[in-house]
C-alpha cells in the first residue's frame, strides 16, 4: 500500500478501484449558504477496513458522511457504493447518527428502537414475529444492553443511547457501517463495547467508516484515516496518513503538540 497525498486541486487518487469500494465519492461539494462545508472531495473508502474521518471542528466530517448518504443535498458530486449508484445499494449500508440528533423523550422502548433497524425488511404491513424480536435482542446483547430491552429510551444515559443506536444499525445486517461521532461524550464502558463491536464487524469482512474526534485513540481503534479540512487532505493506512505533517496541514496551528505526539 502506498500513501495517497492530495494533489493540488484537492483530489485524491483512489487506493482501490472504485468498483470494489463500499463507498466512493467524486467531486463532492456541500454548502450551507454560500460557504462550502465540503469542497470538491474525492474519497474512496477501502473495503473490509476501519477508517476514521478526522479533521478540525467545522472541517465537514459529518457533512461528508451525510452528503454521501443523501441526508444533506450536495451541490455537486457523485456517490457510488461497490461501483453502483447509492440508491441501489441502500440495503447494504447502515447509518448511526449522532445521538444528540433525536429527541429521546420519544415514546419508545429500547427494543422498539432496535426494531426500527428491521423496518425495511418488515415493509409497511409485515408483522413483527418472534424471529425479528430475537434478532433485536441478539443485537442488544452484542452491545451489552440486553438487560435494557424494556426500558423507556428517555431513561438511558448518553453512552447507553449510543449503544442502542449501534444495535439498531447491527439489526440491519449491513456490509458497510457509517457512524457519526460514535464515541462523543460516552463513558469508558460504552467506548470499549462499541470498539469491540466495530472490530468484530471488521473480522467479518465488513467495512466501518466513522467520524472521529479523539485523535489520541485513532491509531488504537482504526486501520486507516481520512483527513479532511473542507478539502480532502490525505487518505491511507494510519501509519502513513495519520502523521504529524499531514495533521499539521489539516489542523494548522490548532493542534496541540501532545496530540501530534499521540498521532506520531
Amino acid at each position: 500500500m502506498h500513501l495517497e497525498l492530495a494533489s493540488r486541486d484537492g483530489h485524491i487518487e483512489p487506493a482501490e478501484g472504485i468498483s470494489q469500494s463500499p463507498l466512493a465519492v467524486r467531486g463532492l461539494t456541500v454548502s450551507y449558504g454560500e460557504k462550502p462545508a465540503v469542497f470538491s472531495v474525492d474519497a474512496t473508502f477501502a473495503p473490509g477496513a476501519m477508517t476514521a474521518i478526522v479533521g478540525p471542528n467545522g472541517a465537514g466530517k459529518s457533512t461528508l458522511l451525510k452528503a454521501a448518504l443523501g441526508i444533506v443535498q450536495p451541490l455537486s458530486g457523485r456517490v457510488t457504493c461497490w461501483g453502483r449508484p447509492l440508491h441501489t445499494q441502500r440495503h447494504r449500508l447502515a447509518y448511526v447518527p449522532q445521538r444528540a440528533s433525536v429527541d429521546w423523550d420519544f415514546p419508545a422502548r429500547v427494543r422498539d428502537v432496535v426494531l426500527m433497524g428491521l423496518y425495511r425488511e418488515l415493509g409497511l404491513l409485515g408483522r413483527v414475529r418472534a424471529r425479528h424480536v430475537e434478532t433485536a435482542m441478539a443485537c442488544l446483547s452484542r452491545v451489552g444492553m440486553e438487560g435494557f430491552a424494556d426500558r423507556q429510551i428517555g431513561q438511558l444515559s448518553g453512552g447507553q443511547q449510543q449503544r442502542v443506536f449501534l444495535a439498531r444499525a447491527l439489526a440491519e445486517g449491513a456490509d458497510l457501517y457509517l457512524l457519526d461521532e460514535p464515541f462523543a461524550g460516552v463513558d469508558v464502558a460504552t467506548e470499549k463495547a462499541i470498539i469491540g463491536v466495530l472490530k468484530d464487524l471488521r473480522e467479518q469482512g465488513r467495512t466501518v467508516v466513522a467520524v472521529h474526534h479523539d485523535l489520541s485513540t485513532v491509531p488504537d481503534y482504526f486501520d486507516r484515516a481520512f483527513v479532511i479540512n473542507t478539502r480532502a487532505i490525505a487518505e491511507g493506512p494510519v501509519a502513513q496518513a495519520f502523521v504529524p505533517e499531514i495533521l499539521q496541514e489539516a489542523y494548522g496551528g490548532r493542534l496541540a503538540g501532545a496530540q501530534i505526539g499521540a498521532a506520531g
Partner: protein
Amino acid sequence: MIWDALTLQLGYNATLVTIGAALLGIAAGVTGTFLFLGKRALVSDAISHATLPGVGLAFMVMVALGGDGRALPGLLAGSALSAGAGLVCVSWLSRRTRLAEDAAIGAVLSVFFGLGVVVLTVIQSMSAGRQAGLETFLLGATAGMLWNDAVVIATGGALVLLLALLLRRPMTLAAFDPEYAVGTGMNLRRVELAMMGLALAITVVGLKIVGLILIVALLIIPAVAARFWTNRVGGVVLIAGALGGASGYAGAALSATAPNLPTGPIIVLAAFALFLLSLLAAPGRGVLAAVLRHLRFQRRVHLRQGLLALAQGQPIYEPLTLRLMRRAGLVRADGVATEKGRARAAKALLDERRWALLRSDPRQETAAARYDGLTPLDTLLTPDQIVELDRNLGPRTAP
C-alpha cells in the same frame, strides 16, 4: 335528554352524525399522533385555516354553474384545493427562505383566513345561491345534515384511518429520527407529504362537523392526552384514537340536544376534559403521580439526613426532618433519639462509610456509579461482597 343523546336515541339523523363524528375523531386522533410526535402539529392549523377561501370560491363556482352552491362534495373539494395551496406555501417558505416554520405557519394561516373572510363577505351580498349556512364551516354544525353528508364524513374518516395505519412505520421513523430514515433510503419528503396530506384530509372531512377553526384541537389534544398514559408509539396511537373517537361521539351527541349548539366547540371541550383527566391522573407521567413521587423522594432524603445527623451526634434543626422522624418513631417529641432511631442511625452511618470506601476504589467504578446517597449498599451487593468490603473498613469509630 343528554342520556338519550349519548345512547343514540335522538332520531335517525342525530345517530348518523354521532357515528360519523366518532369515526372522524378516531381518524383524527391517530393521524394527529404522528404530527404531534414529529413536532409538526401546528402545520395542521395553517392547513385548516387555509380551507376557508376554498369553501367560498367553490360556492361561487357552483352558483355560477347554475347550482345552489351547497353540495358538500363540491365545497370539500374546493377547501382541499386551497388547503393544499396553503400547505405548499408553508413548505416553500420554510424550505426556501430563512423564515422558520412557525413564522411561515403564522403568515399563511392569517393571510388565507383573511382572504376567506373577504370571500364570504362578498358571497353574503350575492343575490344568487343559498349562502345561509356557509358560516357553519367555521365552527361546525350538525343541524340539517343529510344522509349523504354523513356518508362522506364516515367514509373519509375510515379511509384516512386506514392510510394512517398503513404508513405508521415510515411516519414513526420520520418523526423519531429523520436522518436515519433517509439513511435507510426512505423518501422523507414523500412521507412528510403523506402525513400532511392525511392531516389535510381530516381537516376537509371534519369541516362540516368540527369546523375549520377547531379541527386542529381534534388532531392534537387526543395525542397529547394519550402521551401521558403510555411510553410506546403503538400505545399512543391506540389511546389517541380511542380518546378522539370518544370526544367526537360525546361532542356530536351532546350538541344534538339543543338546536343551535355548535358541534366543534363541544367536541373540543369533550377532548379537553379527557386531556385534563390524563394530565392529572395518568400514572407515571401524570401531575399527581409526579407530585407523589417527589414527596416520597423528599421524605427519604430528609430521613436519611436526619439519621446521619443522629449518628454523628449533631442536632437536627430542619422542622420537616424532625417531624418525619418523630412520625417514624425515630426520635421522641423532645428530639432525643429512641432505641429504634439509634439503631437505624448506626446502620445508616455504616452504610455511608461502606459507600465512601467503595467510591474511593477505582475498580468498583460501575457499582460506585449507582451512588445516590439514599440506596442502602446491601441492596446492591451480595453479603459476601459486603463482608469483603467491611474487612477493609478498618476499626469502627464510635459515633
